[in-house]
């Protein structure tokens, strides 16, 4: 089976600080990958490099077999655009467009980028708002929504571009605990629909229940990866044990 996303030997430094040291992994179609680990371990940088929000210094990234960067050399802008067009992203702080209604937030990119027919776009919009349970908010502005609702709109907005893989950068970290549930439920539903996802998260229960694969990252290195049962019940690395102990005590 061809992997949806393949990263090989990724390297990245900010000045003297090395944030990614030789990171390699693959994501199969329909797989949910949870990336966990302490803050500052390079999780977000890794995720952002996969959609070209950060430039890596070395290594290769392929999305659906199309290269974004090979051996540290980036492709031409048109090829980069083609590769990243198959990828969607959901941010920690939602990044909805505040001057547009929910409906217009969803419809902007399909109309401008894909020049998609407005009837099809409107149908998609209704469908995805239904999916995240917010069809009654189509004409609301982002400021009228709760944090959880904003994040669900952001997920629907990402789905509008029909990505082959969806990246989540700590999607619940900016939310009150009682609002994280609705966002996690939406993500679980996406997982059931076989959406391929990479989720950087501190929600261990989500990683445990929903992910097919868990990647533990620390100091720019993948220390351990495997199915959630193995990582959570039988971690081989002392650093993983230490991290899980400290975080599970807190939750």
């Amino acid at each position, binding site marked *: 089976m061809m992997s949806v996303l393949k990263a090989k030997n990724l390297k990245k430094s900010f000045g003297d600080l090395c944030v990614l040291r030789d990171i390699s992994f693959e994501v199969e179609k329909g797989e949910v990958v949870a990336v966990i680990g302490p803050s500052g371990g390079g999780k977000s940088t890794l995720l952002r490099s996969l959609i070209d929000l950060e430039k890596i210094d070395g290594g290769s990234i392929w999305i659906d077999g199309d290269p974004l960067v090979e051996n540290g050399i980036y492709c031409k802008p048109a090829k980069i655009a083609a590769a990243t067009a198959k990828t*969607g*992203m959901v941010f920690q702080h*939602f990044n909805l467009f*505040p001057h547009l209604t929910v409906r217009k937030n969803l419809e902007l990119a399909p109309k*401008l*980028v894909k020049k998609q027919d407005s009837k099809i776009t409107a149908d998609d919009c209704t469908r995805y708002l239904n999916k995240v349970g917010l069809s009654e908010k189509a004409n609301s502005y982002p400021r009228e929504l709760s944090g959880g609702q904003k994040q669900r709109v952001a997920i629907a907005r990402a789905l509008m571009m029909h990505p082959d893989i969806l990246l989540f950068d700590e999607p619940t970290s900016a939310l009150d605990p009682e609002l994280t549930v609705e966002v996690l439920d939406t993500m679980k539903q996406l997982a059931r629909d076989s959406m391929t996802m990479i989720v950087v998260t501190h929600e261990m229960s989500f990683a445990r229940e929903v992910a097919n694969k868990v990647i533990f990252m620390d100091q720019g290195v993948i220390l351990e990866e495997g199915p959630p049962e193995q990582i959570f019940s039988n971690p081989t690395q002392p650093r993983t044990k230490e991290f899980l102990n400290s975080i599970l005590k807190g939750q």
Partner: protein
Amino acid sequence: MDFSVMFQQLCKGSLVTMQLFIIVLPLSLILGILVMLGARCSIKPIRWFFEFYIYILRGTPLLLQMLILFYGLYYIPGIGPHLVITSRSFACTLAFTLNYAAYFAEIFRGGLLAVDPGQYEASKVLGLSKSQMYLHVVFPQMFRVALPSTANETITLVKDTSLIFALGIEELLQNATNIVNSQATFVPYIFAAIFYLVLTTIPSVIFKKLEKKFDF
């Protein structure tokens, strides 16, 4: 002096004022956006040019800029005589547009800084091109932030039009002064004040409406 004659004179003056205002406002707003983009350009010489432009135009009086444009171009060695502007009203319009563009550029720059960096990232991951991003995502938010300052500057523009008397153009205040001097009465100044108030009220009402509309 007949009241209706005075009124007529003041109306004529305010027409000149309004003409200048109506031409300068849109031109300087558009030029202001271009100057702002220029001053943020990643190509250094272009950025330096527009930063220098803002520095000069904001750092010297508008009145002086008008005088230099009309009387001073001639003295530029070599090309000076070819640059001379013979129309007084054109010199005024040009000076006002160049000057106000510098101010609007700074106002827009402030508005741009207020746009959350996450907005650029969201636009990028959705595949928007640079121009689509600025047109549909960044500028609308920039304008909202810039709206109150733009309103301020617009009202100042109405009042600044009185400066064009310096090139001998008979605008509202100049016409009032003429009557005050010839008729030995202060009344025209009171009426001029009322005229200015009416002229500044219109843009302030429009901007208040815009602020409400763009309250997102």
